[in-house]
């Protein structure tokens, strides 16, 4: 008899789930709210070179502050053994703090988004943003030049909040 009891309990557990919310996030109409725990204004991973410790955040596309970068290429050296995706390239504009006028260029076809380049920068000018929609249709456009990296990306879309409703199941609104 315990066979039938276990059998019908299993069926009941399955049927009960029909009346609860579904967990699915309907991307791309809804986007996951990765700034869910609001820690800082930007939401991306940042590193403080003086205190040598980072701030929790999402590791997405990088942002380069060209008015602070001196072209020391420590980020390129840090990436050499990991993904080898940062190259120093020359830029047309001239900056006061950057004599050789060279800035990092990141190839997102190779980047693994580990963030060690952010850790390596001593001048707080390379951070990461919570932008992750980098897909394109050809490989050449995955190489982001320093000018492309210096524009803060537009985060658009409707963010869905996560609601851990205990009675009717967790869902995304």
């Amino acid at each position, binding site marked *: 008899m315990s066979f039938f009891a276990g059998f019908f309990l299993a*069926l009941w557990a*399955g049927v009960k789930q*029909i009346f609860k919310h*579904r967990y*699915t996030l309907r991307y791309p109409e809804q986007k996951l709210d990765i700034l869910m725990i609001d820690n800082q204004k930007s939401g991306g991973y940042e590193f403080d070179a003086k205190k040598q410790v980072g701030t929790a955040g999402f590791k997405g596309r990088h942002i380069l502050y060209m008015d602070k970068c001196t072209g020391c290429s420590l980020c390129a050296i840090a990436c050499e053994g990991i993904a080898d995706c940062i190259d120093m390239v020359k830029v047309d504009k001239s900056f006061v703090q950057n004599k050789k006028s060279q800035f990092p260029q990141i190839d997102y076809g190779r980047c693994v988004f580990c963030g060690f380049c952010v850790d390596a920068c001593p001048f707080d000018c390379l951070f990461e943003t919570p932008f992750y929609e980098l897909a394109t249709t050809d490989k050449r456009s995955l190489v982001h030049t320093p000018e492309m990296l210096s524009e803060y990306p537009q985060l658009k879309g409707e963010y869905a909040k996560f609601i851990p409703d205990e009675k009717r*199941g967790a869902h995304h609104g």
Partner: protein
Amino acid sequence: MDTFEEFLKRVITIAFWVLLLGPIIILPIILLVLPPLGVQVEVANRLLTALIDPFAMLRLVDSLGIGPSSLFFKIAVFPGFTFAALFSTAVILYERKLLAKMQNRVGPQYAGKFEGILQPIAELFKLMFKEILTPERTDKPFFWAVPFLAIAVGGALLALIPLSPEIYIAKSEIGLVIIFAILSFTPLIVLIAGWASANKFSFIGGLRALHLLISYEIPLILSALGVVMLSGSLDLMKIVQAQANIWFIVPQFVGAGVFFVTMLAELERIPFDLAEADSEIVAGWYTEYSGMHFGALQLANYIKLYGLTLLFTLLFLGGWNGPAILPPLVWLFIKLFIVISFVLALRGTNTRVRIDQLIKLGWVYLIFLAFANLFIALTVASLGIV
């Protein structure tokens, strides 16, 4: 021609030119040139009136022998093959959405504006345009024949099951025996499919399905025997009429349970789908089928599901009997919906059985329960309760 797409393009081009040039050339001849010569073309006149007047269309179609009350209509459209095929595709979509809701996710959602309602049609088109691969070392005539044989078995089942006292395709005094005889043709089809595709996994799958189907035929027939005893005839119409007072599931609950379990085994559904065990033998006996060939096999599977659940409803749940507020056909479909939901929900909550546990279940436990059921039926019948 290379692909199905080019074939379709040619057919559509020919049809387009015929439909364009036909009326432009032929109609003026019939309407303007011939009558002054004294020739009236009868069929063309009737055809033209039928295009405008629906009742004239009905009369024309009746006179040609394919009207709504003719046998051709019953076999091909309702309650025959077309209706069964459409119902099966609806069941496929319902199964996917029900399982999705049970599993905490959304099923098909993009085909069709409302929650993926056009998904079966999208899949039909996809399967039609895929290439049908035939491996080199297969036994080609048998390999090609299998899906059509499977559909033929499913369709033949439906021919003997009435949907209401007036709607039926064929009537017979021994309808139940004919249905079981048709069902017992399935193991042969599976064996042919497993052997003719020259593939080790198909072979293992075919043998497993053969074990499964043969072991569960005897309990299937025995469990229906109790119903025959209580109603006194093998004719499905009379069985339903005998349930006017009480549905047979009440005195025959053991038999109904055995019939339900063996029905799942005959349909090769979870928990008995070891012929198609995804993780062990890729896809069992239909590994090598692709394209519309595969689509035909799936259609046959779901037509058999429709036929067998209909049989369960007629034998145990009182068929089309019910209070007179709704027509009998609607009652039948309500009960059918409940039985199908139950069969589909079982898919979500169970694991597969192993082959030796399955054979023990079929030959030992179920036959014992079916015989016990027969004794219960004899007792109930002799006490005159039913």
